[in-house]
């Protein structure tokens, strides 16, 4: 990473977020919006700090729901994509269902889910997974469909079995689209968890805190919770970006470090 990359990769987003806060502040001041309607960034951050000891454990619970749902959704989407890639028929039958599933207003299915699955983490996992599986499935399917035909032929000509070709050619080719899907999913996952929490949760939750704060007209606390949810979503997104960076060295590095191997096998050593 050179200086230019660091500036573009880190500094610009930071400035950009700072600008958002600035604009937010200007709107609140400029239009004289009262605190109980919408608080300024400063008031929101104060509320976040003041409620931190309450919010943090709730945030952990939301993160837990998000993580589980995310994993379930990602695995489901991936498996579905692999299954669909096998035959045109399966794909033709499943694809419309995928689209329909996303056209269903998720808030509308949340309530029946709670009745079916109870107040625990299960309905939240289902909702998060429902949101996450779609971009994963669509992108991985795309990745599988776009593996170079000639490369697959070559692999077969080399004597590769179906399973080994899948393992060494098709599977790695899904990595980039998988991450694309995961990044989209990560951005929306927290929203899913929050919807689940809103409809029902055991004891307190981030969404529950928000509702309580709302019912006691503590708007800065409502927005603090919203800010925290957004931060969790962004954090989750950035985590996926980071994992992608580390696990796909061939995209940004010229060489792979293989110290152990080079040390023992390099004829020049």
């Amino acid at each position, binding site marked *: 990473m050179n200086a230019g990359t660091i500036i573009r990769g880190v500094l610009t987003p930071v400035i950009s977020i700072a600008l958002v806060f600035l604009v937010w502040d200007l709107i609140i001041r400029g239009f004289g919006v*009262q*605190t*109980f*309607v919408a608080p300024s960034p400063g008031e929101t951050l104060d509320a976040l700090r003041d409620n931190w000891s309450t919010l943090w454990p709730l945030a952990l619970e939301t993160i837990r729901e998000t993580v589980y749902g995310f994993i379930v959704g990602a695995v489901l989407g991936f498996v579905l994509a692999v299954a669909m890639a096998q035959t045109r028929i399966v794909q033709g039958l499943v694809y419309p269902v995928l689209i329909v599933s996303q056209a269903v207003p998720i808030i509308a299915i949340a*309530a029946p889910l*709670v*009745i079916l699955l*109870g*107040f625990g983490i299960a309905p939240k996992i289902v909702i998060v997974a429902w949101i996450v599986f779609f971009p994963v499935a669509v992108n991985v399917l795309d990745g599988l469909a776009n593996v170079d035909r000639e490369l697959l032929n070559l692999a077969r000509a080399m004597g590769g079995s179906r399973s080994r070709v899948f393992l060494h050619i098709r599977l790695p080719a899904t990595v980039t689209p998988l991450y694309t899907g995961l990044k989209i999913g990560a951005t929306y996952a927290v929203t899913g968890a929050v919807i689940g929490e*809103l*409809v*029902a*949760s*055991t*004891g*307190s*939750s981030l969404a*529950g805190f928000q*509702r*309580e704060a*709302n*019912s*006691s*007209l*503590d*708007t800065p606390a409502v927005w603090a919770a919203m800010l925290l949810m957004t931060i969790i979503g962004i954090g989750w997104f950035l985590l996926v970006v980071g994992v992608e960076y580390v696990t796909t060295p061939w995209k940004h590095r010229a060489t792979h470090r293989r110290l152990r191997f080079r040390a023992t096998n390099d004829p020049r050593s």
Partner: protein
Amino acid sequence: GGSDDGSSSSAAAPTDGATTAPAEPVDITLSYDWPTVDFEATPIVVAQQQGLFEKHGVNVELIFPPDAASSAKVLATGKSDLALLTTTDVAFSIDKQLPLISIGNYTMRNNWGLFTKPGVPVALDTLKGKTISTYGDSWTKAMLPFVYQAAGITSADVKEVVVDWDLPLLLNGKIDVATNTTNFMIAGVEDETGKDPEYLLAAENGAPDVPVWVYAGNTTWLQENPDAARGFMAAIGEATAWACENPEDAATMFGDAYPDSGYTFSYNRIGWTDTCRYMQDDNGQYFTQTDEQWTTLGEALKGIGELDAVAEPAAYYSNEYLPAG
């Protein structure tokens, strides 16, 4: 009884307390306490249908807030002139210095309690270990500790769940006990199952007997339109009295006004009838507020840490706009 402060109206044009209909009725926007309509709007519907508002020189439009907590915000921002609010809404609004004030009780007593399915009795000594639903609202948060105290338990002895809508969960056995008010829960359960739920009224089990809902007004608007406010209360007073005497007709009238509300006639009738049980004080009086009700509520909210300080009673309410007599 009631507040004898009176300063809040001193700036307004003097009146003799009796309302007379001016040529041009004053348009009033009233924000409801819930995002959708239900039988609690019966007095307003009756006043509209029977021309009582016109008679008292006002014209009322009912609007619905985005969520249950936003009616106070709608009122405070001047998007409405009057509002139906819970008393906790008023308490928090004053704490946050929102420009509004309560001008009359809707109910005079506390009809909040704990409910179980028909045939499943509920008592203080059976609460331990039960799953209890709440709406995550401040009222419930303020009242539950009184009940727990009376039962000799703490919140750790039960499993509290926060839900969006309790009735299906209660009937489906997903929760053991729902917290709600009698009018809504009895109407819901009876309409759905034909039977009454079992319930335990909080006011009879350690909780203060304070009103749940009030009419409130935007202070600026009130200062400019004291006569309209009085006209409104006068019309509502006549409508409420008539509707409680003729619940069947009132429910029919409500159903005609909101045919798409999704509620059945029996639900509306049962609910309204039960509401009427709590609308008068021991003296048969409607509306009149007391220092004591606000102090009691304020202390209860302070007790659970929701309020830092209880304001002077006069900050919360004014009986200035009540109809004469």
